[in-house]
């Protein structure tokens, strides 16, 4: 039987505020357990939450970037459940008046676009973290509340995805938008970006959705894809046997590449939502909203399109450039200084990214500046150094942040364009390679390339290759 896989994603992104959502504690990752806590985020008796306006604005910004309708009246609701990492045993979240509803996001599938609808975007607080002792049979667990109360953005998509490629593109695009709008650092390894998937199958051509299964504990984008693939196979096997799919929540086991039931629909929790009486509703007026709208930069997909059209870049290069906002920004700055988009695109997408990868550099704190890259391109064009030498200079620039002229000077890398000097070297090479000259004269064309290479080697790559070529041809007599 052929089935259509129907997939929706729930995304949690920690917002990049310095302090927590309802108190002044730091949100810094990696501190000693329970050192970034106070009576408010520990849920002590009698304390009250006070909303972090910055966090709300970040959430609003993301909702606008995801084309949501903004609820001009929003408030917080309490979501009740018991768990030791949840200090108050309720989470302050949004349920009745979500910040943003009915949004959408375009994803790119090898040049084709698809629109994925967003059900809602809302703001809530993080829980703490349980730490289970390593010893076996321990009769206790510990709780670290440093994370409790960190602002969390939840983005719920409609079940509009049909393939893992679409899911992959959705995750990548969403991540880029959150990075572009600077509302989250999206570090998956630190848990600041997390996904949960819901999957159902239906026979091709049938409208009615099948029973959906939710999958939690997906620690990377790769595990999201693997878990969906696993789940699609599991469900189709059951359907083929004539069995029905239970509505349930399953936990993904990354090590074994399997999922297992966490709870069935019957066991699902009643969260007993009701409006949070400790916080005032938030009213969003036109002025505030338009200030937020104006603060949103051009988003990745639109920017890529513009790069292709305005700079005549390939779709591939443009999408690599717009992958990271900082790259696209640097590229545009370079082009502003000097109208050589193709050259800059090559330097950034090939050389810079290779350096970043090889040296494990942080793309957001690179030493090389756009002005310096423009200088390098100019120097190459002038013929001061060859493009081979330029690569060496570039690598040095990335490592040290020095200006290209300075590196060229220090290392004596200036191109040799003095005819006399080059001829002297050529004569030496011809003299020591008589057999090659013979071959060349017999018609072996690539013998010339060998000779050019020898000259370049002798000059440590500094000889002007064009001149070497011409002079050499003249010497061996054509």
């Amino acid at each position, binding site marked *: 039987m052929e089935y259509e896989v129907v997939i929706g994603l729930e995304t949690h992104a920690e917002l990049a505020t310095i302090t927590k959502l309802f108190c002044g504690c730091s949100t810094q990752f990696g501190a000693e357990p329970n050192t970034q806590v106070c009576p408010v985020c*520990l849920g002590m*008796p*009698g304390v009250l939450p006070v909303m972090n306006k910055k966090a709300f604005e970040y959430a609003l910004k993301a909702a606008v970037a995801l084309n949501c309708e903004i609820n001009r009246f929003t408030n917080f609701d309490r979501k009740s459940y018991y768990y030791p990492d949840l200090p108050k045993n309720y989470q302050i979240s949004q349920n009745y008046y979500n910040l943003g509803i009915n949004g959408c996001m375009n994803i790119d599938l090898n040049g084709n676009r698809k629109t994925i609808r967003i059900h809602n975007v809302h703001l809530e607080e993080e829980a703490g973290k349980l730490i289970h002792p390593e010893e076996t049979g321990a009769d206790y667990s510990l709780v670290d509340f440093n994370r409790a109360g960190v602002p969390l953005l939840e983005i719920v998509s409609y079940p509009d995805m049909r393939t893992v490629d679409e899911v992959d593109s959705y995750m990548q695009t969403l991540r880029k938008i959150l990075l572009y709008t600077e509302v989250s650092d999206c570090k998956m390894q630190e848990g600041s970006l997390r996904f949960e998937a819901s999957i159902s199958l239906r026979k091709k051509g049938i409208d009615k959705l099948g029973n959906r299964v939710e999958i939690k504990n997906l620690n990377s984008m790769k595990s999201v894809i693997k878990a969906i693939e696993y789940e699609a196979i599991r469900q189709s096997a059951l359907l083929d046997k004539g069995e029905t799919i239970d509505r349930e929540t399953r936990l993904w086991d990354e090590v074994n590449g399997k999922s297992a039931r966490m709870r069935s629909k019957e066991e699902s929790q*009643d969260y007993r939502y009701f409006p949070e009486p400790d916080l005032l509703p938030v009213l969003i007026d036109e002025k505030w909203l338009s200030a937020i709208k104006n603060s949103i930069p051009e988003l990745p997909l639109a920017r890529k399109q513009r790069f292709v059209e305005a700079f005549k870049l390939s779709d591939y290069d443009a999408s690599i450039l717009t992958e990271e906002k900082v790259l696209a920004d640097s590229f545009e700055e370079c082009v502003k200084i000097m109208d050589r988009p193709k050259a800059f695109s090559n330097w950034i997408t090939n050389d810079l990214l290779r350096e970043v990868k090889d040296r494990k550099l942080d793309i957001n704190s690179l030493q090389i500046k756009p002005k310096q890259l423009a200088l390098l391109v100019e120097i190459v064009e002038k013929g001061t150094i060859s493009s081979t030498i330029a690569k060496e200079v570039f690598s040095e620039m990335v490592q040290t942040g020095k200006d290209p002229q300075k590196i060229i000077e220090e290392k004596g890398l200036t191109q040799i364009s003095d005819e006399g000097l080059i001829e002297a070297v050529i004569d030496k090479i011809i003299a020591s390679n008589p057999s090659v000259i013979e071959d060349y004269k017999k018609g072996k064309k690539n013998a010339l390339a060998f000779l050019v290479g020898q000259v370049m080697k002798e000059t440590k790559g500094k000889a002007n290759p064009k001149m070497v070529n011409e002079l050499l041809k003249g010497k061996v007599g054509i």
Partner: protein
Amino acid sequence: MRLLESTALQIQEKILSKEIRAKDVIKLFFERMKDIEPHVQAYITINEEDAIKKATEIDKKLERNEKLGLLAGIPIAIKDNICTKNLHTTCASKILKNFIPPYDAFAVKRLKEEDAIIVGKTNLDEFAMGSSTENSSFKITRNPWNYNYVPGGSSGGSTAAVAADLSFMALGSETGGSVRQPAALCGVVGVKPTYGRVSRYGLVAFGSSLDQIGTVTKDVRDAAVLLRVIAGHDLHDSTSAQVPVPDYSNGIDSGVDGLKIGIPKEYFAGGLNKDVDNAVKDALKIYKQLGAKIVDISLPHTEYAVAVYYIVANAEASSNLARYDGVRYGYRTDRASGIVDMYCRTRSEGFGNEVKRRIMLGNYALSSGYYDAYYLKASKVRSLIKKDFDIAFEKVDCIICPTSPVPAFKIGERANNPLEMYLSDIYTIPANLAGIPGISIPCGFSKEGLPIGMQILARHFEEKKLLQIAYTFERKTDFHLKKPALKASVV
């Protein structure tokens, strides 16, 4: 002992004029405490050592002519659901028996800034849930006017302490009348400010949309000073109002000439005790003599107030009390297997019956499928009750009615009938639902010699007018000057 019967402002005057030292007052105070407190049982924690230290400090400041705060030298008691730094705050619950907050409530911080002397933490119904102070996990507070009777509740410890001269002033808290009702039953003055007037920071939450800290004093002028100190905006409470705090004492003697007093017919209906009815009607005659106009009004949705209240308050309480789980602080069971068992045992062992009853009612009202029928419906009716007051206040300046339908009842009399107990708050609850301020002042005595209180209600943030109207009556009468014959009534 006459000295301890004086009002807070009177004792402060004596201290400031150096007629008596603050330290001597506090010593006399704790002597009386040893004598009387064992009978009244108003306190859960007594803060003697700190209080003496603070009194000595004040005397020194006075000697050095240093500037002193508005409440300098005044012994004050605090209901034990209001957090006091480094001093036990138990909410009269086993679950918080050993809880010592590392922070002060905003109101407590203000008291300290104004040099008040905190003498102890007073008894209450567990987590302020009750109308008789019988629901305390630790002790039953007795009405100083007759030890066989309840002091009312839930701030019964605070009102009994002030009535028995075991404190000059006290803080209480209201969710549905918990200051006004026991104030009426103990013959003292109780103010419930407008919702948002006093920060709730540090008041252990019961029904967050209703909770408000209030004052308990021997007379109206003391209330004016105490309210001025604790009122005001607090950055730590988003629901606290950014409305300037006036000097409530200034112009308190302006009288009631020409003022329109509304009498809601729904508050004088069946179930109202005859003595209470008479006392309040006599009080209205006095107001008339003083130049006020009496206007009949109607608050048509009054009959739904108790039902609405027990849905809203319990729903919020069920959520507010979820944090007492044994994980981070407070009581934890010592025999649990696994986390769910730990939760269940901790909460079963730590909470009393009334608290459990309300948590269950509240959770039920919020559960999926019932939310619309209960919580949402109750919220809508709450708006109608609020609107009743808005309409009434278009015609009148204040509303006067009984505080409680009955004077104090006997200990144990209503303990096994929660419904009857809930009806004790029938006249006080509407003001909490509407968020308006109210005051209860003494206005007579029952045949049995138990105090009767009447309450005055006004528009949001009109505490000043409220105090002025109350003071006008108080100045003309002497109900507030009567003292219980404590020794004689010891059982």
